[in-house]
């Protein structure tokens, strides 16, 4: 029976015996014949390990890899009809170009005259006719890249694996090769599985993108899908530029974040804690009066086709891409259309908010000092005699530009009638009974929404103070100024 899927990965997991590190965790994927699939993710996300398991250089700890429906996970690489283009090409330096390309054919005992024909044909495919006698070391990086592709393609593999093949090339060469690879793929009809950490590369070339982080698949979809409909904050952040805010649903298709209330196209029950993703090109600059939210321009950078503008709106910073050029310090208004807002249901109700640093290197929020010191929050950080703080590498931190994000669980916040005891004050704007507790949303006076779990019943619009113990907070350095 002919299956449409050329390769399938089922619950593939890889952990390394020596340190127990789980590189790939329950990976499930189906690839159709002729597809161009890209594994995209930051370094260490497991994308290369997955590719190496398909090639046969690594054996999965558990799970199945099916090629045309047959399990191949235990076959050695030389018995798989799959070829690889290596990151640094791995062309054999002791052979000339002809022998390099002919290597696979000779292994298969292809007749001599056919080998010559095939090598010639594949060399013309990669635009390097007449290079047969050249030595590997006399070739430029781009040429070696093409030979590496030719050496794999000449075997007519069912699947071509490419492990960050363009990483070593300069930008212009990389863009050229991207188009050429795409053309080759369309022309040959071979299934390509491509690994990269470059989101632009992935968006340009792929039919299907698999976004990975920490060994897990975050999202599988077409380039349009992952760009326009990111499934979670990681994908939104990794693919393209984006502004990510935590917020709350305030009504039917109404959402509040970044100090404003907006209409959106996604619908979640009122009170749902959400993550709002706004692409920089979807924010329209206008006058403060016409804007849905207002802010002050903090930087304007010319990027050729457009300007990249940062606007500080209350406690939040918004990146905007625009052809208008406001001045730094100017008050502006911002409009975001409903389809420019992508709302994702937050995975958990963790409260996240930015905190300030005062001149004594103490963190503060809402004008109240938190009992912790900055030096404790930076790994290996310590304070020099002149008062500056350096991190473990000895780099100075410019704390005027540093931002810390505090994280606190809803169950760790306590509501009190003695408003003064709280870190912030606000009014209860929503409450839902969730089985054994109520989930409250408190709209604080500073514009931030907090989610609080409490077993007792409070009333809508009750005014409360929120007590947040510092020891229950987790701080992370969000933005680090460089000196």
């Amino acid at each position, binding site marked *: 029976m002919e299956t449409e899927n050329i390769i399938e990965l089922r619950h593939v997991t890889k952990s390394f015996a020596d340190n127990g590190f789980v590189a790939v965790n329950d990976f499930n994927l189906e690839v159709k014949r002729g597809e161009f699939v890209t594994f995209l993710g930051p370094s260490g996300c497991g994308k290369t390990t997955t590719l190496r398991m398909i090639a046969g250089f690594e054996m999965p700890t558990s799970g199945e890899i099916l090629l045309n429906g047959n399990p191949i996970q235990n076959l050695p*690489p*030389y018995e798989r009809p799959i070829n*690889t283009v*290596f*990151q640094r090409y791995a062309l054999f330096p*002791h052979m000339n170009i002809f022998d390099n390309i002919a290597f696979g054919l000779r*292994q298969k005992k292809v007749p001599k005259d056919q080998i010559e024909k095939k090598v010639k044909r594949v060399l013309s495919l990669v635009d390097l006719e007449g290079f047969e006698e050249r030595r590997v070391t006399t070739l430029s990086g781009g040429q070696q890249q093409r030979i590496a592709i030719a050496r794999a393609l000449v075997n007519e593999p069912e699947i071509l694996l490419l492990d960050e093949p363009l990483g070593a090339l300069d930008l212009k060469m990389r863009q050229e090769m991207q188009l050429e690879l795409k053309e080759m793929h369309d022309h040959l009809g071979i299934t390509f599985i491509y690994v990269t950490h470059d989101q632009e590369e992935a968006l340009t070339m792929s039919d299907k993108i698999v976004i990975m982080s920490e060994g897990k698949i975050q999202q599988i979809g077409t380039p349009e899908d992952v760009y326009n409909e990111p499934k979670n904050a990681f994908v939104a952040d990794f693919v393209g530029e984006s502004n990510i805010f935590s917020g709350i649903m305030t009504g039917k298709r109404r959402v509040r974040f970044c100090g404003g209330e907006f209409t959106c196209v996604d619908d979640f029950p009122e009170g749902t804690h959400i993550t709002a993703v706004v692409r920089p090109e979807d924010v329209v600059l206008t006058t403060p009066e016409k804007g849905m939210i207002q802010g002050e321009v903090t930087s304007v950078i010319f990027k050729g086709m457009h300007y990249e503008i940062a606007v500080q709106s209350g406690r939040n910073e918004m990146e905007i891409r625009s052809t208008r050029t406001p001045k730094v310090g100017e008050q502006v208004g911002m409009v975001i259309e409903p389809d420019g807002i992508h709302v994702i249901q937050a995975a958990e109700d963790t409260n996240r908010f930015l905190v300030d640093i005062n001149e004594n290197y103490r963190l503060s929020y809402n004008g109240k000092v938190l009992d912790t010191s900055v030096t404790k929050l930076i790994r290996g950080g310590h304070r020099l005699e002149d008062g500056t703080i350096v991190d473990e590498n000895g780099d100075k931190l410019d704390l005027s530009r540093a931002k810390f994000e505090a994280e606190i669980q809803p169950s760790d916040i306590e509501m009190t009638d003695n408003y003064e005891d709280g870190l912030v004050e606000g009014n209860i704007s929503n409450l839902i009974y969730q089985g054994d507790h109520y989930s409250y949303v408190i709209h604080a006076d500073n514009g931030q929404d907090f989610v609080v779990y409490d077993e007792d019943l409070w009333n809508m619009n009750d005014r409360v103070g929120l007590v947040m113990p510092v020891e229950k907070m987790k701080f992370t350095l969000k933005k680090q100024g460089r000196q």
Partner: protein
Amino acid sequence: MKFARKNLCIPYAVWLILFVALPLVVLFYYAFTDGTGQFTIFNLTGFFTDPNALGTLVYSFAIAIVTTAVCLLLAYPTAYILATGRLREKQGVILIFVMPMWINFSLRITALKELLDVIEGNLAMYPFLNSVIGMTYDFLPFMILPIYTTIMRLDPAYIEAANDLGADNREAFLKVTLPLSMPGVMSGISMVFLPAMTNYVVLDMLYNSTYIMGSLIGSYFSAYNWHGGSMIALILLGIICLFTLLGSDDEESTNARGGALL
């Protein structure tokens, strides 16, 4: 005077002149003169017409070739296992091979002599065998280390590429690892071959009457015939130069990637 970067090479240049160039000039002078300081090529013709001298040359060659071959046969698998195997105490194993080099040379050889004495009864019975054993024992690390270093530095991606293109592990070794480790092998050969032709001290200490090129040169000098001794040294130099040139011919592109000792 302003200090220029190139002044840094002065000590090396002085060294080179004093200990390389000057001795060579002296060597040439003695090789082509007779006792009265007159130019002569008698030393050269004398060597090639002396059947004893030529016999020694051939015999030295034989010992050197066999010693080098035995060293290579022992060293390559050792170096390969050390470089690619998953040995837990790799550094320790390497130490075992290197440590004899730290023990005093004469002590080492004397110990070997006593051992062979016990095994063979009479050392004089097997001069060729004993020469090869003694020299192999002495020179083996010089063969292992360059090969080990070369294999260590091989990008594992080459083997993976060979596997990927359909070669099983044996074929990948023969077609990729072996040819790519040749610079190390060449380096090892050059470090074993010449000493094996000339290092007669090892043989002397084994109470071995075998006469090799080194012994021949030594005998000329101890008889105060500096002219004949210089000529033989020069001939050896010429032979080694010839071999080095021949050897480097087909590995021009790969030897840049190194294979030097340590």
